[in-house]
């Protein structure tokens, strides 16, 4: 089995930090670090969910749609002059919505046994359409002071994002050592064998999509707090980014191999690379192309490495 070392995303991460540092020497200043991390956090949250889905042998294309739905819900229901109570109320509702969206995916995939890719592709349209329905034109938003809370929080001098990441990683370390964690790897590795061993495959498959939906909702909340306003297309690009981050992070597409740490590093790396493009003062017209090529390259590298390995053997 190709045990793709979590080494690779680490090296990539260090490299991107180095290049970024070069172009933006004040990168580790509290202000800049915080500013960067709060931009990266939504993708990181999304990637964690996607990583777990991939581990379990699936994939979730609809995450961007869920992000958009949550954003539009908060922007319309809370509004610029909403109260903090209302905000927290709708944060809770958003988390439920995310889990529900995931459960819908999970129902079709785990119980009706449809293919994950095409199912979540269909629901991605459904969810994106719903977001657009809730908020046809960009507008609305959340109260400025709540947004500021997110933007400027630096407990003990470290960006809020650091704590979130730390909590996520600790939760993952715990989960991966529980029976559920073993079941996850088993189902992703070889579902038929897991079934014969009396692992509750269907319920595991359902759960990974609920987790993904939940994480997507968290990402939606984070990005709403970041931008402060509503835009139904906000989640559009994030799906491909989350998949790329997971691939960089070393999780196998077929499932059963990898973790969450690697993908988190992958998400930070990808975000840094996109940062680098912005800083390299490339012609605006070329920016989109450059960012897209980074993604294709990031996707290609694990494949190239395996190709070389196979040729050598």
């Amino acid at each position: 089995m190709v045990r793709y070392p979590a080494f690779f995303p680490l090296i990539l991460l260090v490299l991107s930090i180095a290049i970024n540092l070069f172009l933006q020497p004040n990168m580790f200043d509290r202000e800049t670090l915080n500013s960067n991390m709060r931009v990266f956090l939504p993708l990181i949250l999304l990637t964690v969910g996607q990583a777990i889905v991939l581990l379990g042998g699936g994939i979730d294309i609809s995450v961007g749609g869920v992000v958009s739905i949550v954003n539009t819900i908060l922007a319309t229901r809370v509004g610029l002059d909403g109260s903090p109570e209302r905000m927290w109320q709708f944060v809770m509702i958003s988390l439920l919505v995310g889990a529900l969206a995931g459960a819908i995916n999970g129902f079709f995939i785990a119980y009706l046994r449809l293919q994950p890719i095409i199912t979540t592709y269909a629901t991605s349209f459904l969810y994106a359409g719903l977001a657009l329905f809730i908020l046809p034109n960009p507008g609305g938003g959340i109260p400025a002071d709540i947004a500021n809370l997110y933007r400027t929080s630096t407990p003990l001098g470290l960006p809020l994002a650091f704590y979130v990441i730390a909590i996520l990683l600790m939760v993952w370390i715990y989960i991966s050592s529980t029976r559920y964690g073993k079941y996850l790897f088993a189902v992703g590795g070889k579902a038929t064998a897991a079934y014969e061993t009396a692992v509750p495959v269907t319920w595991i498959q359902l759960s990974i999509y609920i987790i993904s939906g939940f994480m997507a909702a968290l990402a939606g909340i984070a990005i709403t707090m970041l931008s402060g306003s509503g835009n139904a297309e906000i989640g559009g690009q994030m799906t491909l980014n989350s998949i790329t981050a997971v691939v960089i992070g070393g999780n196998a597409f077929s499932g059963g191999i990898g973790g969450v740490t690697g993908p988190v590093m992958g998400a930070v790396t990808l975000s840094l690379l996109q940062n680098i493009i912005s800083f390299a003062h490339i012609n605006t017209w070329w920016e989109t192309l450059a960012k897209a090529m980074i993604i294709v390259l990031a996707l290609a590298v694990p494949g190239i490495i395996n190709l070389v390995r196979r040729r050598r053997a």
Partner: protein
Amino acid sequence: MTKSLSARNIVKHYGGVIALSDGNLDVRTGEVVALIGANGSGKSTMSKVINGVVVLDGGQLLLDDKPVNLSSPQAAKNMGIATVFQELSLIPQMTVAENIWLTREPMTAFGTVNRNALQEKTEQLLSLFRGTYKTELRPDDTVGSLPPDEKQLIEILKAISFNPWMIILDEATASLDSRQVQRLFELIKEWKKAEKAIVFISHRMEEIFRIADKYSVLRNGKTVGAGDMKDINNKELVKLMIEKESVFSFSRADSKNENKDKPVCMEVRNLQTDSLHGVSFCIHEGELVGIGGLRGQGQRDLLLSLFGDIPYTGEMSIFESNRKLRHPREAMKQGLALIPGDRAREGLLYIRSILENLQLPSWAQYGFPLRIGKARKDAEAVGASLNLKMAGLAEPVSSLSGGNAQKVVLGKWLMRKPRLLLLDDPTKGVDVGTKAEFYALLTRLCSEGKTILFYSSDDEELVGLCDRVLVIHDGLIRTELSGASLTKENLIAASLGASNEGAV
């Protein structure tokens, strides 16, 4: 405390195919029951019904004479029934320890898996077979990297770890070497003493006579006989299995020595692949050469590399010219054909029509646009020559019975008039009547000047059909048997590793 499980009149079908129409089995603690039957007789289905993996369509299961419903693998496990599966139920990406204890991992107070306990318990289990492993086999080894025999042992250990009262061993010895089989049988004897019940599914008569107390024979989905092992002998068992004493109604009388003067069809020197460690031999035109040995010793690799499907090192010359085959197409150009071992996975396109299956390698010959009419005629001709029973060329191949489906696999190659046929266990899962047709066909092809090289896991087949047999053990040809030395006893001995360093 005696426990018993009975299966009565079990019916099971997969779509239109009837796997069991009247399956019966009685299992009691302290006994080993051998469940016997030819391939396709329903043995595996029976074990799957008992361990809850498939749902039964008719009949009942009785636990201590009370009806019981085994509705899932979990239910069977809860009843104390553990199975060693034919298609391993191991997760390749996980470790030995994780695989064995999956769903029953020792836990800590925090709800996480107790890794030390896991390690210890695994070591304890691994020690049961210590001394028979080829590799170091540690609890942390990834299962995917293990050789097939060790994977099988892990599967056995996994079943034992449930501490079941009933263990089903479904072709569990298929990949094991003789030492491992010996150790397993010692364990089985201990299990009997510990009041466990064992169902031993196998087609290896020697093993059955060594270990079983009772027998139960399935034929074409029906139980046709059951009783004590001491009341029956080999011949009678075979008769129950296949209604004949031997499938070979013709004799292999004519000496095939004249083939040595015929031109060399294929010569192989030092062929190496992942499981072959340097094989050399040569075959003359018109010969019917068999490959023997226990499954998994490299026979499959040999056939696949001869057909250009897998990479290899070494030299090969076909019809006197040296070749390096990189793709089946190149092999086909040289006049080779391969009838693969797993017909569903490797030989047929199940949802496509019989016509498309028969013509798959040959469409290029029909021009552009394809002359479908001519393709149909040619396909019908081949079907007729093979006595293929089908509703029509446009029907999907999935509508055919096992034997007829295998004929399609054969037919698609015969259409191309190959000069050398490679076959990987061609009569596996084929009913008796079709088997006889096959044997007649193979011998006829040889007398027409074609050359055949085939692997079979059935010793009778090899002895009955072949001019000579090359027995592979552990990646090398250890023995060559022909003429008077080609007997079942010699074959079995050679499969287990005895060698005569025969002529190459």
